[in-house]
Structures are given as C-alpha cells and as structure tokens.
C-alpha cells in the first residue's frame, strides 16, 4: 500500500501569494457549488452534480497548467478545475440553467459536462473513463509535433473499473506520453463503496503494472496536492511520461441532486467527514502559517459572493436556446472548425 502524502507545514515551500491564490480558487468554487445546490433545491435548475470536498486537488493541478496550451479532459466533479483554468462562475451558471450562451454546450448537455475550446478543455459526455483515452491521444498528437504540452485527465475511482482506464494508462505509459492521470477517490461509485469495487485500497498501486509512478496524496491537504501536481506536471512536460496521482478526497454531498446518501451511509460517518472539510482545513493551515488572517478571508469571501450574485443574475436573465437551433451542429456548419 502506498504512503499517503501530506504537507501541513508547507515543506513544499509555496509562497504566500500562491497559497492565497489556491485558497481563493477553492473558496470560489465552493461558493459557486453551493449556489448550484440552492438553485436546484429552489426548482430553478433541474440537476446538479457537485465537487464539494474535491476542490484542493483540482486547484492544485489546475494551477500547474498553461491555459489554452495545455489540455484538460475533465470529469463531472471538476468545477474547481474549470475555474482555475479560466472558465467563470457565470459560464457554469449558464450551463446549470441550460442557457443558449453556455460555453460548455449551449445548454445541450446536463450540467457539469464541461468543455471549452478556447481553453483546451475538451467536451465531455456522460459515459465514464472515455476521456482518458482522449487525453492519451491528445498527448500523442503533441508528441508527434514535438510540443511539451501536457494533458490532464481526471476520473473518479468508480470509473477506474472501466476498461478505458486501463487502456489509456497502457497506451500513455507505453509511449511515455505527457498525461497527468488524476483519480479523485472519494470512496464511492454513487452508493457502492470502494471495497466492493476493487480488491486494493489504493488505485495508485495499479501504476506499477504499467511501469509508471503512482502517488497517493491526501486530497484534503491542499499543499500536499500542489506538491504532487507540480512533480507530476514537471515529469510530463520533460517527456518522462505519465503519472497516476490518486487523491483521497471526501464526497461531502450526495452523488448528485437526485441522490440522497443518507440512505446508504451511516449518519456518524457523514458527520465525521464534515469535520474534515478540505476548505476549512486549508483555512486553518493558512492561519497557522500566518498567510491569511480571518478578516482577510472574510473580505475575500465577500468579494467572491458579490461576483457570484452578479453572475447568477446575469445567467438567469440570459435566454434559453431557441428550438429552431436543435438541428445545428450535427455535422460541421459553415464556420465550424
């Protein structure tokens, strides 16, 4: 079993600005995610699938990327990742409200099916693990052209049971491609606990079978995540091949807005997890490191709430797609690339 990496004392040596930026990204995503739940419970948004509890590792990896040069093949919990790379709360609100100007899909896909050409975030559908092969192919194309762009792809531990997960690791490892495989392991495939998904506790142990490094990191420890992300990215960019990074994260919400995890998880377990919220942990760490005081954190929150309120109003005022557009983009239209 791999050792889970932690770094609560900032042995990674991150400067104050980087730490504050990480925290801001995490908080911005959290506030937006909570807003999505509110919109859903108010009946204004039909569906939401959350990333609450997963933010640290997404932010840590997102901060390593060169937006629009590097590539992202995300999965549905990657709200924070999309924001770090350059999408906005308004972009994602337009999506949850199925508005025409939603940059992910123009209101065609369910929320949290991310994609943005401008930022090299490829469009993702609902079948799981398929995007890992796309990331391998993207990195393969970069390799053919001699570019050092990296392709980040992420996945829940549930989808690591799919064949595409193994086929992607195998291909990327065989050709030493610049892929970052990030497993956000929250221990549940909807309601099925990891013990019924796999015989080993650490997905990262599978990396050995493909001859690549496998790293387990505490996904509630933002600094440890940053360090793991930095190392894996440097390795990929240098042409030394892929890394499988597994972040042990908490799913602090039900699987989706249509699920109620109280039906299959003990109350005590859920309450204990709340005490380990990565955002609160990071806030405490930053206070201890004297990087962010409580008043500074409060000011940051107020500013982000203001941005979010404005974005929510704008998204709600935006039009729905017209039914006459439903036949467009089945095949390339004039102007499509």
């Amino acid at each position: 079993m791999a050792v889970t990496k932690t770094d609560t004392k900032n042995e990674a040596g991150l400067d104050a600005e980087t730490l504050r930026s990480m925290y801001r990204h995490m908080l911005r995503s959290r506030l937006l995610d909570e807003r999505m739940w509110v919109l859903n419970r108010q009946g204004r948004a039909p569906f939401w699938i959350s990333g609450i509890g997963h933010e640290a590792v997404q932010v840590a990896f997102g901060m390593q990327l060169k937006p629009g040069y590097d590539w992202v093949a995300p999965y549905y919990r990657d709200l924070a990742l999309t924001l770090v790379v350059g999408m906005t709360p308004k972009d994602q609100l337009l999506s949850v409200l199925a508005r025409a100007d939603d940059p992910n899909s123009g209101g065609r896909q369910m929320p949290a099916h991310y994609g943005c050409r401008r930022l090299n975030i490829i469009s993702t559908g609902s079948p799981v693990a398929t995007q890992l092969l796309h990331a391998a192919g993207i990195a393969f194309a970069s390799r053919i052209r001699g570019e050092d762009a990296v392709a980040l792809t992420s996945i829940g531990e549930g989808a690591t049971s799919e064949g595409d997960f193994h086929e992607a690791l195998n291909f990327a490892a065989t050709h030493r491609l610049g892929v970052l495989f990030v497993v956000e392991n929250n221990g549940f495939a909807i309601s099925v606990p990891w013990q019924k998904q796999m015989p080993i506790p650490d997905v990262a142990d599978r990396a050995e079978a493909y001859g690549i490094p496998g790293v387990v990191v505490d996904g509630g420890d933002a600094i440890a995540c940053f360090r793991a992300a930095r190392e894996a990215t440097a390795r990929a960019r240098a042409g030394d091949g892929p890394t499988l990074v597994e972040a042990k994260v908490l799913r602090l919400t039900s699987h989706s807005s249509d699920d109620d995890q109280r039906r299959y998880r003990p109350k005590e377990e859920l309450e204990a997890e709340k005490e380990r919220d990565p955002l609160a942990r990071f806030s405490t760490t930053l206070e201890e490191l004297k990087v962010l005081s409580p008043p500074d954190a409060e000011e940051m929150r107020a500013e982000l709430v203001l941005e979010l309120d404005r974005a929510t109003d704008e998204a709600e005022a935006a039009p729905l797609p017209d039914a006459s557009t439903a036949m467009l983009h089945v095949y390339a239209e004039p102007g499509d690339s």
Partner: protein
Amino acid sequence: MATKTYLEAIRDGIREEMRRDDRVMILGEDVGAKGGVFGVTEGLQKEFGEWRCLDSPLAESCIVGVAIGAALNGMRPIAEIQFQDFILPAIDQIVSEAAKMRYRSNGDWGVPMVVRAPFGGGVHGALYHSQSIEAMFAHVPGLRVVVPSTPYDAKGMIISALRDPDPVLYFEHKRAYRAIKGEVPDDEYTVPLDRATIAREGSDIAVYSYGMMVHTTLDAAARLSDDGFECEVVDLRSLRPLDRDAIVASARKCGKVLIVQEANLAVSVASEVAAIIAEDCFEHLDAPVMRIGGPEIPAMPYAPPLESFYLVTPDKVETALRALAAY
C-alpha cells in the same frame, strides 16, 4: 491512368494524403512493419515513420479513443480496426464520443477522424471475420458511413474522408481487396461522401446495393439484359447520409425496385431504402418493393455449404429480378 486493385487504390489515396498533409496519421493493429493483415498500409510506416503509422495495442476502444484525442488536438487520424467484427469494443468511443462531440459542444469541438474496417464474407472467415454490421452505425446521427465499391471510388472517397471535418466510417469489403480491379487516376481527386452513383443505367428495374454486392448485382443485371430487361443499378456508396434524391429518381424512373445487401435484412440499410421509396414513390410503383440479404442468423458459418447458404449470389439476385420483371 493505371489499373489497380481496390486495395491498392485505398493505399494510394492514404499515401497521397499523408504526403500532402502531415496531420494525417494511422493507428491500428499490425499496421506498421506488417502493413496490416490485408496489406492496405504496406510501406507507409517505412515512408512516414513510426509515429504516423503506429502499431497499436490490441485494444479497439484504445485505437478509436486515442484517434479521437489526436483529432481534437489537430491531427487527421485513421483508426484501423482489423475486422469490422471487432469494432464493438470501440462502439462507445464511436457512438457516445465521436458522433456526439460536435453536437454536444454546440459546434465548439469536432472529430475529423476516419475509422477504416474490412467487412463482409465469402472468404471462409466464419462468424467473426465475415460480418456486415454497418447498419448499426448508419443509425447514428453525427457519423458518416461510406462503402466504396470500385477502386476509383475507394481512392477518391478515402481522400474525401480524410478532408472531412467529421467522423467517417469507411468500410471496405474484404473480398473486393484483390478481386476488384479498375482504372484509377494517378492524380489527386475526390469523390463526394454523400452521393450515390449509377453503376449501370436502365429503365425496367431499379436495383440498389453497396460494396461487393454492387458487383454481384451487375452480374445478375447483365444476365437479364440478354433477355431484354434493363436494370438500373444504383451504387449507394454512402449509407449515412443516404442519397435520398438519387434513390427516389431511379425508383420513379423504373417503377420496380430491388434492394440487395449482404447483411441480414431486419432493421438494415435495405429497410431504410425501402422506407424512403414507400414514402416518396408510392404512386410510381408497379410492384412491391423487394429485398435480398443475409438470413436472420447470428453470423456467417464456416462450413462451405453453410457459408453459401448465407451469401447473396448472382443466381439469387437473378431469380429476384426475374420475379420482379414478371410481376
């Protein structure tokens, strides 16, 4: 202009496009040093290097999924599936991903990829080296599905497919590879991906077909010609989209219709052609629409008598045509 086999024509088209456009690359099982199990990619790895003609792991979802990724990142990949029978592990990548990428991203992302696969029977390939499952893909909006029947079209359509901005499934009848020869221009040319063509003109019976079955149909049509019945043989070439105008024009002209395919008939290309004719040509018909295809058994068996039972032959087509002629 030189006489080439169907297989050589496909290779010529790929090679010329690879020389012209360095985004074109091939990924598949045994496509490198061996040149593919049928030899379509022979010599390409030597000319273009390992990266542009890569021997893949034995994993079809990987082949297509990686090709999709490469296409998203600016390449023009060909994913070669060794036999159409083995394409099913990749169906999620083809149907859920490639076919829907443009639509689901509202035009933001496209997948300019060609998936090539040999299909069809009559080569003692038994259940898993003989199938014709193109109808599964012809059902899917967002895909193009083409089946050239002549060397001329094989070259022109592979070039068109490689220049198309959307995923194209390009199916090659494996019996045509060496059996079918024809004139192929040395120069670069394209053939449209969405147009049927008239393989033989006539005005008595319209016969629709594609792939190797076009040649079977032409043989039968020649026999009827000796007796004064002239068949119009329509080579569909594109199964998605079907060339509706061409289908309707020949049916209206002839008034009698036969559809010939190697695949079994239920919920197939023949079903769709028949539906189009029923919708648009009802008042022009002088006989019921007839179809010939494989039987409703899981796939083509190995033993020669069983294989022959499955196959559509010139004799079977001739019998159907004579029944229509007499109607």
